[in-house]
């Protein structure tokens, strides 16, 4: 009985469930897997097509995002600043420029950022 329990434990350790492997996949992306987890995952991936696919998909999504993240800002034109917001920002920038120019004129020197 003790031996069969022991065998079950070893088998469970050797053959982690998919739920665990899916978690490890994410940790693997961050280089957080320990060597024994990596080894057990590799064995699991040999026999589990779904986990293998999951892993390939996560890797592909991350590689795509890392390759050219700003592409995400190229799409989604619906997201725009409102005209009022643009006007507001322009005014703030304008004010900041005027203030800086004025202080430069007063000192007859380029402004030095305070603090």
């Amino acid at each position, binding site marked *: 009985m003790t031996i069969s329990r022991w065998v079950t434990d070893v088998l469970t350790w050797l053959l982690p469930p998919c739920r665990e492997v899916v*978690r490890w996949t994410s*940790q693997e992306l961050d280089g957080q897997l320990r060597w024994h987890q990596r080894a057990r995952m590799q064995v699991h991936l040999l026999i589990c097509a779904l986990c293998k696919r999951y892993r390939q998909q996560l890797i592909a999504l991350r590689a795509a995002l890392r390759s050219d993240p700003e592409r995400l800002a190229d799409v989604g034109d619906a997201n725009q600043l409102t005209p009022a917001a643009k006007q507001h*920002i322009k005014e703030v920038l*304008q004010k900041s420029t005027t203030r800086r120019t004025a202080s430069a004129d007063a000192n007859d020197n380029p402004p030095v950022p305070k603090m």
Partner: protein
Amino acid sequence: MIDNSTKIAPGLSSPDTWVDQHGDYLYRCAMLRVRDAEVAQDIVQETLLAALQARHSFAGQSAERTWLVGILKHKVIDHVRRASREKPFENLERMTAADDDDASCFGDDGHWRNEHYGPADWACDPRKLTENTQFWEVLRYCLERLPERSAQVFSLKDIDGVDSDEVCKVLNVTPSNLWVLLHRARARLRECFETQWLGARPGERKS
């Protein structure tokens, strides 16, 4: 004496034109990362103000827009740091395995219930995804639907590639919490992407 403050570094356009040229783009970059219109607008403003002050140091090594996006990323990190201090990530210790979104995909034995519960075939070479404009549209759609906190974690780590230790500091979470948050964000994003991608493709073929 010449007033240096109004001089523009070579390679930069006049700050008066920045809002019209880059405003919407920067706004979209900010929205991706913070998900709140008002906050995103503030971040665009802070970015342009900071750029205005730093314009003498623009080295011309990158394009103007890239330079602005670089400043924006710092402003986003500042915002997330402040927000995480005001409203810390809570109860993460409680929320462990049991209430993950993917709990229903797995049977009691921890394996995929059956192939319908597992990841579907995306019917394309994952390495060629980026060439497809629709890929970016679907991805953006799904990123916008991540919960706010998930989106913050995900964008810092997977979009901007911020170092894990730094992300933990910014979010004020432990490394093990970070892994839980990341795992969830990625699992959700993958699932949403799959649903939208496979749903969108038949339409694409018809047209």
